[in-house]
């Protein structure tokens, strides 16, 4: 990308529809085929969105922005999502800003000079460290399981093997009442066949699986459909599954709205 000709100011003009057809065409071409140019355009767009949310655009630019980025309910929702991320970061930063908590730091300094408080503070610190270590260990365990799931479900590892259970989406009559799955009989893991009932077919899918009533979920991001696109296979290691009800959300990569939900019971 020619940095001298296409700078951030020019890209901002482009995003607000202030450039001529020829220039617009040139940037759009670069956006589609040049990964560096794409990242640059998206970065400038990110700045523009931020400026709009902070109310620093001029009235005219604000109107141009709204005409492009806040037309549809989906676009307005995306803006609200971006705003929520910014608001969260600002609130977190404000709560840990020393300038805003100077009263509290004085209080802490006072604590530091009182030996009677040293023991409780040390005990609190130890608790924090232990809790932190447990949290880190759980995160590591979570990452290891996701890695294993990714390896099991890598496109290259798929062969036409026997299916342990075929699942219909819960929106289909009977889809929520499947026979319990017995993992004892399948030491090498289970293979689920998730039926995709939507008309649209997609080249890639991702699944999120969790045990019902548990918050922790695991994602598999590289699932491919069978050749006719009517089902997606998902492999799970046997040790991953314990007795209980499981929920799977399957979504099409690149389509925010195409999601199906499945449930199954592990019986042993």
């Amino acid at each position: 990308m020619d940095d001298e000709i296409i700078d951030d100011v020019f890209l901002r003009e482009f995003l607000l529809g202030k450039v001529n057809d020829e220039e617009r065409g040139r940037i759009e071409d670069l956006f589609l085929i040049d990964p560096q140019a794409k990242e640059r355009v998206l970065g400038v767009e990110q700045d523009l969105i931020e400026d709009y949310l902070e109310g620093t655009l001029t009235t005219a630019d604000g109107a141009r922005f709204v005409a492009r980025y806040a037309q549809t309910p989906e676009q307005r929702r995306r803006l609200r999502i971006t705003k929520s991320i910014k608001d969260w970061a600002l609130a977190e930063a404000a709560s840990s800003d020393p300038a805003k908590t100077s009263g509290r730091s004085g209080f802490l300094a006072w604590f530091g000079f009182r030996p009677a408080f040293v023991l409780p503070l040390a005990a609190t610190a130890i608790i924090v460290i232990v809790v932190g270590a447990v949290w880190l260990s759980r995160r590591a365990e979570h990452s290891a399981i996701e890695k294993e799931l990714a390896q099991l479900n890598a496109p290259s590892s798929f062969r036409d093997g026997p299916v342990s259970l075929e699942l219909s989406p819960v929106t289909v009559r009977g889809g929520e009442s499947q026979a319990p799955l017995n993992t004892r009989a399948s030491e090498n893991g289970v293979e689920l066949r998730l039926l995709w009932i939507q008309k649209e077919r997609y080249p890639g899918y991702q699944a999120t699986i969790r045990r019902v009533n548990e918050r922790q979920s695991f994602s598999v991001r590289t699932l491919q459909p069978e050749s006719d696109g009517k089902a997606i296979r998902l492999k799970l290691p046997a040790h991953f599954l314990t007795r209980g009800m499981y929920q799977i959300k399957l979504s099409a990569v690149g389509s925010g709205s195409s999601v199906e939900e499945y449930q199954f019971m592990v019986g042993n």
Partner: protein
Amino acid sequence: MSRDFAIAQESFDEILAWFNPDRERAAAMYVQLRHDLAKTFVWRQCSDPEGMTDEVFDRVARRIREVRPTYKGDPRLYFRAVANNLVKENFKKIKTQIALEDADLTKQQVSQAEAEDADVEECLQACLEELSFDKRELILAYYAKEKQAKIDHRRELAQRFGISVETLRVRTHRICLSLEQCIERCLPAYEQRK
């Protein structure tokens, strides 16, 4: 322009083959191009970017057998040319749709948006938990300041990481994108509970 979108399997396969002989790479390019074309429709004030993207693929699918053997260059640029023609054709209709959309921004929509804000908050918290510590801290630091103050702050931040402000922006954008996608996936679950 919302309508059922279905390309015949044969044409779809041919489009993928045109993108890349490796089907996996071609599929990734397909997904990316859909996303990118929708983006260009947004920039051109089209009220239904997804529907228009469907239409572009539909049109290319109908002509791929005649176009592919003779077309020289990156196929994605052919898709852009089709998209460009589509925008021109629909310009009048699109303007009408925008006018109706604006007029329809009722109080009910505003209250729906407010209700959704609460769901976005819940989903944001859930999605933040899925982020690694480093990524979470980076987002936190990047957005810690607003307006004029953020410019100096981000410059310092980039220096601290030993990267350019540009690279810092790209990194945070990628994280934000994954966070936004996570929230988009999470929201329907909250809406269903109501």
